[in-house]
């Protein structure tokens, strides 16, 4: 039982980080019809920004984190929207998907060539020491990761629902034409969405990289899981991507521990196929209407 609790909690912790990536992915899809196949790489790159901040510029860790966050928002948020999404989206969604695929390759190879092909250690935000939680040995890092991620989601939800800007963003996502008429600066709201996605991806990077080490190939696994989490959970609400992320994190851990290690990666895939074919709006999604 305690092992089960351990596996469950550790799965929730990882899952909550996946959820951050999934939420950002869902936001950008909803608000800007952009299916970002480079989302995984968006979670890989910020870690390297931090390493560059510390190694190249000699910043202390906390400053490097801020630097990484800011640079990510600039490059993976603003520049991504301006240089790639805006020119290509008019040519169709599929073309944009392909462009983001190319972007993924670009980011991956750039890190590999210009930084290193080797996995790099990344400083942990929280201690890895185990603590006793109802009989299960869970690392403090896992617990804190979970708390931090969930807090971020709560803050984001409050922002979107309770602030004027947040509600404007929702309006712009749901019905851009009407929002425009009502005085919402739709273009800027869309920009904010991209910035938020970059921020979420960065935060996910800071939380997960200590565990997996910074490597150029990290994006592949995380990206796929982010997509699957967003779709399985359901796009229509942030809650969907959150539920999706947690679910995948837990199921992945449970599968690996109790069923099969070799085919653990198959579970999210099978889940994806089933959900898409049976209930495309996802577990939490509603079949009509969209909300951020």
């Amino acid at each position, binding site marked *: 039982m305690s092992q089960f609790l351990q596996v469950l909690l550790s799965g929730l912790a990882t899952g909550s980080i996946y959820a951050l990536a999934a939420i950002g992915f869902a936001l950008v899809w909803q608000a800007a019809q952009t*299916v970002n196949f480079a989302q995984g790489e968006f979670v890989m790159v910020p870690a390297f920004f931090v390493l560059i901040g510390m190694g190249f510029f000699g910043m202390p860790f906390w400053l490097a984190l801020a630097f990484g966050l800011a640079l990510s928002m600039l490059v993976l948020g603003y520049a991504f929207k301006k240089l*790639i999404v805006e*020119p*290509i989206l008019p*040519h*169709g*969604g*599929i*073309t944009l*998907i*392909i*462009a983001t*695929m*190319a*972007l993924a*390759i*670009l980011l991956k*190879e*750039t890190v*590999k*060539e210009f930084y290193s092909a080797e996995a790099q250690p990344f400083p942990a935000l929280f201690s890895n020491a185990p603590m006793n939680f109802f009989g299960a040995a869970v690392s403090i890092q896992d617990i804190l990761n979970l708390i931090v991620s969930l807090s971020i989601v709560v803050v984001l939800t409050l922002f979107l629902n309770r602030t004027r800007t947040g509600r404007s963003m929702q309006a712009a996502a749901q019905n851009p034409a009407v929002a425009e008429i009502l005085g919402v600066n739709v273009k800027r709201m869309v920009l904010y969405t991209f910035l938020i996605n970059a921020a979420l991806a960065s935060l996910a990077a800071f939380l997960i990289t200590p565990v997996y080490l910074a490597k150029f190939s990290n994006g592949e696994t995380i990206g*796929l899981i982010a*997509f*699957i989490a967003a*779709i399985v959970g359901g796009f229509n609400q942030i809650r969907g991507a959150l539920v999706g992320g947690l679910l995948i994190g837990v199921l992945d851990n449970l599968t690996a521990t109790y069923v099969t290690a*070799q*085919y653990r*990666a*198959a579970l999210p*895939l*099978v889940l*994806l*196929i089933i959900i*898409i*074919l049976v209930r*495309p709006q996802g577990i939490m999604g509603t079949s009509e209407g969209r909300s951020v």
Partner: protein
Amino acid sequence: MMAWKWRWLLVALLLAAAIAAPLGQKSYIVYVLTSWLVFAIAAMGLNLTLGYAGQISLAQASFMAIGAYITALLTLAGWHWLIATPLALLACFVVGLLLGYPALRVKGHFLAFVTLAFNTLVFLVLRNEEWLTGGSYGLSGMPRPDLGLFTTMRPLPFYYFTLAITVVAALAMWGIVRSPWGRAFRALRENPIRAESLGLDTRRITLLAFAIGSAYGGLAGALVTSLVQFIEPASFGVGHSLRILLMVVVGGAGSFFGPFLGSGVVILLPEVLRFTEGYYLIIYAVLVIVMLVYAPEGLIGIGARLKAKFFSRSQVRADMSQGATLK
């Protein structure tokens, strides 16, 4: 469209160039050229599914895998390549039909994800079922076909063997695309609802688009088996499906010669950029992005635009493209 005789002249020239190209070259160059042909076949198949029929698939590499592994296992057991390959093609056709069913339910991004998941699942099975596939160690030592009159053990004969198969495959594709089936595929891409209302069974045509495209992927895989004489799961992952997709898009989706162009660019560019060491993928990715911004119809599209500049035709009532609507 070019006038017929120019087209045939161009084809003849290209064929002559293809026959002459490997003569006197080092075996590595011949190997690269053979790769080009093999991937052109895979790209042709995906071009049918995506370019002509408008169905996105990120699973073409997995069909290369199925074709490659079936051919490998059979040839290692002593069967002749020319007998093993049709069986592999059949298997790919059937599996392709199955993959088409999700396409009846979802389109666009969702379909992309389903095919991506399928590709990854195939990869997992290939990697894990060691007893059958050799797992991560792969399969090696597959013999090259002996064609009675000559053997294809050496690079040059194998190149011409591959060229012959490519020509046959291209002719078959030409036949399909020109026929009412080709028109039906394009109708599926352009306006499936209208097509349905004209008696076109869009479900059947969608499944066929996947099945035929997959069979071409399988053919490419069967050739890869003999070309490299070593296959492993990592050669058929999602990244490779993306490469084939890029070949189709860069060449020009929905055009007949696009796959050859695109495959050429993707296969040859790294060789040309070899001097840049590891940077070629970066350069390549940047080129793709730039191309998608300025010329999303691919290289064929650029060609068409250049041609339009020099041989312009009259624009028909473009000013009246949307009449006064009451809505």
